């Protein structure tokens, strides 16, 4: 080897460049190894999620089926009376839509903005072909609703291909024709108590706001319950001799390996009014046959079942962190004069914070998107936002709103994750 090769510069190449070259092969191998998974995730996860979130902003239904009306509406200032040209465009579009059998889609779309307009579109479209100028009078003759500027405002809102309307809707705000926003109609809002005891106050919330709030509340409560129940278990597992702790670990993991559906339905068997728990309570005289408790098909049922199902997510990170804390720390604390409690609280517990953080964020984030359990045992007031997203996906077929709700949920989770990083620090987390 000559001395030139040990210099930083060699034949005009910098050390950094040569290092990159040398590392290229191993980088390429690493990339090729993860490539199948990367493609799988891109195709089955990232692309659908992005596509779906995109639906929350993008709705071409109206503008595609009603191009002439859309062009007219784009010119309209939303204040002045709709003129003859707008009516003429509308009639032309209605005729085309009826021929193409797409009028139902238009009716559904506008109906989302202004309820009760569905039949106005379908019946007018049936008669549109026979109408003659002046179209304004002719259309109002067919359906007097056409004289109401509100229906034109609804159409203008619907004609936006790119819209924030669905995201606003997900937060219980409605978009006006001029692009401003108003709150959801008072009739669709309820007064809700927020907080505990003296700190509670009443807020007037729309259904989505209420559901988001309830979802956060249930997730937070499940996280707290999991921590309270899981911490002692994890401590026991971490301190017992290996043979015993392995046996007990199986008891923690066994439910983990069982289908969520099985576990949830077995809670139905346990908690229903004629179920095991109520039977025992009656048997031991805690209550009588008429006073059986409602333990399921409400928020309590959701809380119990979700806490049970998510418990391993708390126990496992806690266990792995606790396992890594040598017993000499607590011994040292005691030898320095600390009582059992002080040694635990001042020395042991602070060292378990990474496990608490990991367990809590895991449970919370899984809980916030929970769907099957609240659907099965939640009844009316145990439903969470995912159940509503499901409703719009499968029942109302308002995918755009479902995307809006999902997008808001994603933003909330990401915000909480950011908050967690600021307060606890993501580096402080130990998944095990």
């Amino acid at each position, binding site marked *: 080897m000559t001395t030139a090769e040990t210099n930083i510069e060699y034949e005009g190449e910098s050390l950094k460049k040569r290092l990159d070259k040398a590392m290229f092969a191993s980088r390429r191998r690493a990339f090729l190894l993860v490539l199948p998974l990367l493609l799988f995730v891109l195709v089955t996860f990232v692309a659908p999620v992005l596509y779906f979130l995109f639906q929350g902003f993008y709705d071409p239904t109206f503008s595609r089926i009603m191009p002439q009306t859309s062009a007219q509406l784009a010119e309209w200032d939303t204040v002045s009376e709709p003129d003859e040209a707008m009516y003429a465009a509308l009639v032309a579009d209605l005729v085309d839509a009826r021929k193409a059998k797409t009028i139902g889609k238009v009716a559904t779309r506008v109906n989302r903005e202004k309820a009760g307009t569905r039949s106005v579109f379908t019946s007018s479209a049936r008669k549109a072909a026979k109408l003659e100028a002046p179209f304004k009078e002719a259309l109002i003759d067919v359906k007097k609703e056409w004289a109401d500027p509100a229906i034109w405002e609804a159409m203008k809102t619907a004609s936006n291909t790119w819209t924030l309307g669905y995201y606003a809707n997900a937060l219980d705000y409605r978009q006006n024709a001029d692009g401003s926003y108003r709150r959801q109609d008072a009739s669709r809002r309820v007064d809700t108590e927020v907080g505990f005891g003296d700190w509670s106050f009443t807020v007037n919330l729309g259904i989505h706001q209420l559901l988001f709030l309830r979802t956060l509340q249930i997730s937070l409560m499940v996280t707290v319950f999991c921590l309270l129940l899981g911490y002692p278990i994890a401590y026991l597992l971490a301190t017992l001799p290996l043979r015993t702790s392995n046996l007990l670990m199986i008891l923690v993991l066994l439910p983990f390996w069982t289908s969520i559906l099985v576990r949830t339905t077995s809670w139905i068997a346990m908690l229903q009014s004629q179920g095991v728990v109520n039977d025992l309570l009656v048997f031991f005289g805690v209550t009588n046959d008429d006073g059986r408790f409602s333990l399921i098909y409400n928020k309590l049922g959701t809380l119990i079942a979700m806490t049970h199902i998510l418990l391993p997510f708390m126990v496992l990170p806690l266990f792995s962190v606790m396992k890594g804390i*040598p017993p*000499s720390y607590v011994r040292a*604390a*005691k*030898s*320095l*004069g600390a009582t059992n409690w*002080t040694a635990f609280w*001042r020395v042991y517990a602070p*060292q378990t914070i990474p496990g608490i953080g990991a367990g809590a964020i895991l449970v919370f984030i899984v809980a916030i998107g929970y769907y099957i359990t609240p659907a099965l045992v939640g009844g009316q007031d145990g439903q969470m936002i995912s159940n509503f997203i499901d409703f719009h996906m499968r029942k109302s077929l308002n995918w755009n709103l479902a995307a809006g709700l999902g997008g808001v949920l994603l933003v909330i989770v990401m915000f909480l994750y950011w908050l967690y990083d600021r307060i606890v620090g993501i580096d402080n987390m130990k998944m095990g």
Partner: protein
Amino acid sequence: MSASTPLVRFENVQKSYDGEVLVVKDFNLDVERGEFLTMLGPSGSGKTTCLMMLAGFEPATHGEIYLDNQPINNVPPHKRGIGMVFQNYALFPHMTVAENLAFPLEVRRMSRSDREARVNRALDMVQLGEFGARRPAQLSGGQQQRVAVARALVFDPELVLMDEPLGALDKNLREQMQYEIKHIHENLGVTVVYVTHDQSEALTMSNRIAVFNDGVVQQLAAPDVLYEKPENAFVAQFIGENNKLRGDVTALEDGRCVVSTASGHQVQAIAVNVSQVGQPTTLSLRPERVLIAPQPGSIDNEFEATVLELIYLGDHIRARVALLGREDFIIKVPNSADHVAIRKGDTVIVGWQSDDCRALDA
């Protein structure tokens, strides 16, 4: 209570973990006030268990431990007031150095100003005055070690226990820390019970050493006595380098004996652990006490040996020789100006005083 009563007394202490095997068998020990006592032994010999029983982390299966004449078997660790330095220091990672040191003072409800004064004094004692605001992970191994010592001393305990505290340090640092701990002990007059498996560490620091093996104290003595007058074959072998010669006692008189080796030679020795003629015995002989080409007639053991191997070690030369039918006999030749020049393959006369050769148990 007179000052002469021992600070710690183990009385017939036994310990078993599984109810079948005794890891500590009938352990008796007095630790005097101000003493530096080391428990030395191979791993599994029960020395750490004894320390843990004294600290209160393991209950004794049988017997009683006294601290200042009070039985402490039922006193929980935090009420014993014993400072302890752990193997891996056990510095609380989520606290700064100063907070670590303040911890024992805080749990004793000492006022803030007293706490600060004491912490600063303890930090100065271990020359870490500037490091109070650091976390343990930001310190080197030697610095962590010093903090651990300071923390065990900051609340002025009468007794400090150290469980192989230097095990994780490299050789140079270990030697330096040995002196530092020794000096701290001398300056503070605190009583130290120290556990180690490193005999040179024990010899450097201790007033007395208890050599453990198999749950039993083999010998309890000052370092020089332990080295020069081992009472049994285990101690002779465990402390320092040792030549072993096996044989049978053929004559025994006035504390001296003659031992006949398997090769048929007769060796004069001091009778330490032999009581009758015909008994098998192990002769113990330190390598540095063997002389090469001694003045003829000046010493009572003289034999012919063949040099098998020479290793140059600077201050001395190690010679492995074939002698009395053994090929692992070591002689240390000091590298003095007038030392006898030997070469591999030479046949030389070697010899030793019978006073340096001890007949121990078989």
